[in-house]
């Protein structure tokens, strides 16, 4: 099998007596959308935090393209090419789209204007931002200078996703990207996720929405009690089977369980 884009083995994280991650494994392959599902408190977000550098695990290893890495902050993970779309989106509402896309990664003019006077290259940033929105087919925003708070929920989500796709060179992690959206807007975000995958970036999608997971995921990682319970294919499993795996009513290997894609 090919080397996973992102892999984790035996991750452990304890908070006092609470074990948030209990020997979790994780595999994400190039060109796939991997859904991570699990009941509340199963430790999904702790796992994602460990993968995106927001949390330093007590034990276990993370491998990026087969090479062992250790992130001490989200910034380090980002520099390694892992972009996260947070549930809160992390946008500055009073600033325009282009500024938000480049927030924290602004481009300066070349020459002394940039190096001495720290002058930002507004035109270049706007052009790149426009190209990115065009490439992802985000056409509804009127112009790149539009203030984010005048956008709809779906459009804001699209801006956050576009930012991740723009700077994520290895993979994109999305935390409940459609939780706050209506049906129609959710569909547009799913289209966006597909487009990102088709451009070659693997996507980790954390979601509660089973129909959505089955619609878009190539594989489903079921998380339970702080570790990976199973990985199933949406073609092979039913929604009720996945829910049963999440709650523990069904164990991998039981009669009637979908085939587990990992040992």
């Amino acid at each position, binding site marked *: 099998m090919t080397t996973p884009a992102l892999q984790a083995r035996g991750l452990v994280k304890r908070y006092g007596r609470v074990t948030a991650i209990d020997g979790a494994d994780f595999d994400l392959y190039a060109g796939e959308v991997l859904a991570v599902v699990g009941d509340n408190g199963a430790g999904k977000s702790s796992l994602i935090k460990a993968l995106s550098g927001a949390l330093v695990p007590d034990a276990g290893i993370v491998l990026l393209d087969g090479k062992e890495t250790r992130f001490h902050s989200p910034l380090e993970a980002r520099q390694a090419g892992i972009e996260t779309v947070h549930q809160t989106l992390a*946008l500055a509402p009073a600033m325009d789209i282009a500024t938000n896309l480049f927030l924290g990664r602004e481009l300066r003019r070349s020459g002394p204007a940039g190096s001495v006077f720290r002058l930002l290259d507004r035109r270049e940033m706007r052009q790149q931002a426009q190209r990115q929105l065009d490439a992802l087919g985000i056409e509804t925003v009127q112009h790149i200078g539009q203030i984010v708070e005048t956008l709809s929920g779906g459009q804001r989500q699209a801006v956050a996703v576009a930012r991740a796709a723009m700077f994520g060179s290895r993979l994109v992690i999305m935390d409940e990207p459609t939780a706050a959206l209506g049906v129609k807007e959710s569909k547009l975000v799913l289209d966006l996720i597909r487009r990102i995958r088709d451009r070659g970036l693997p996507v980790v999608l954390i979601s509660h929405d089973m129909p959505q997971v089955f619609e878009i995921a190539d594989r489903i990682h079921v998380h339970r009690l702080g570790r990976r319970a199973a990985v199933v294919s949406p073609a092979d499993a039913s929604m009720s089977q996945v829910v049963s795996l999440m709650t523990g009513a069904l164990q991998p290997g039981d009669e009637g369980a979908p085939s587990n894609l990992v040992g």
Partner: protein
Amino acid sequence: MTTTKPAPPVRGGRAAETLLHNPALGPLGALLVAVIVFALTTSTFLTVDNLSLVVQQSLVIATLALGQTLIVLTGGIDLANAAIMVLGTMLFARLVTEGTTPLLALLAGFAVCALLGAVSGGLVTWLNLPPFIVTLGMLTVVLAIGRLYSQGNSWPVTDNFLGVLGEGGYLFGQVKVTHGMTLVIVMFAITWYALTKTAWGKHVYALGNDPEAARLTGIHVGRTRFSVYLIAGVIYAFAAWQALGRIPNADPNAFQTGNLDSITAVVIGGTSLFGGRGSVIGTVVGALIVAVLRSGLTQAGIDSLYQDVATGVLVIAAVAFDQLARRRSR
């Protein structure tokens, strides 16, 4: 995202949206109206001498308000700015009176003001204390230090160098542009540039907008916030120098409402007390509005207490407008 309709326009139409995105426009309109009204109703307001005086009277508060704007943009507030400035004037004046060279006295004053700004900033940034409480404490402490250092006296300044901002200047026809005016223009221009044209400025706005979002985008939130308080401290030292240019006498009891006056200028200038929105241009206009109201109402023979009433009403109106604009944008 090819089929969603564009977001509904801001309710209240184009005018509200324009105002929301150019928060200095409203105050600028108010300033023009005030100038026109006083020009028409009094014979003495619209004269070169009076306008020059209005500007000179607003220099110190405008400078204090410049530092205040930076802090308010981060979602903070500084109650200690005038106290820090007054301590600065005391240092300049007493050191020179006791024989220190003026340049050295100036450097010492700047260093102390910067240090006090850094103390506020450090407490807010790394101990996560609310700026209101930190600067309230600093206000009390710095006021007391200023009074102790003054030994109960005010210290007159006779040195030319310390008074140069008020005394020195250029003549354009019959209009005298003092060095103090030039300095304020330069300081506001530099700050405007830093806020709007550099990454640092974007980060200041972003962290005032939503500190958590700013952190998640990789902005060094702590470092940026601290830098704002430090820079504000340096700006207050300039305000101290301006104050000695206006009145060459360092008085420990001067500018007792300077902190509130600076907040007034910032708020009337359209900067949001919730952080992340506003501009230094608005602050200039805000400082001028206060000075114009003072002068105009005086020329019109209206009791100075009504001037305070007018200023207070303006402050509340400005904040109400800000709230309204922000609610509409949701």
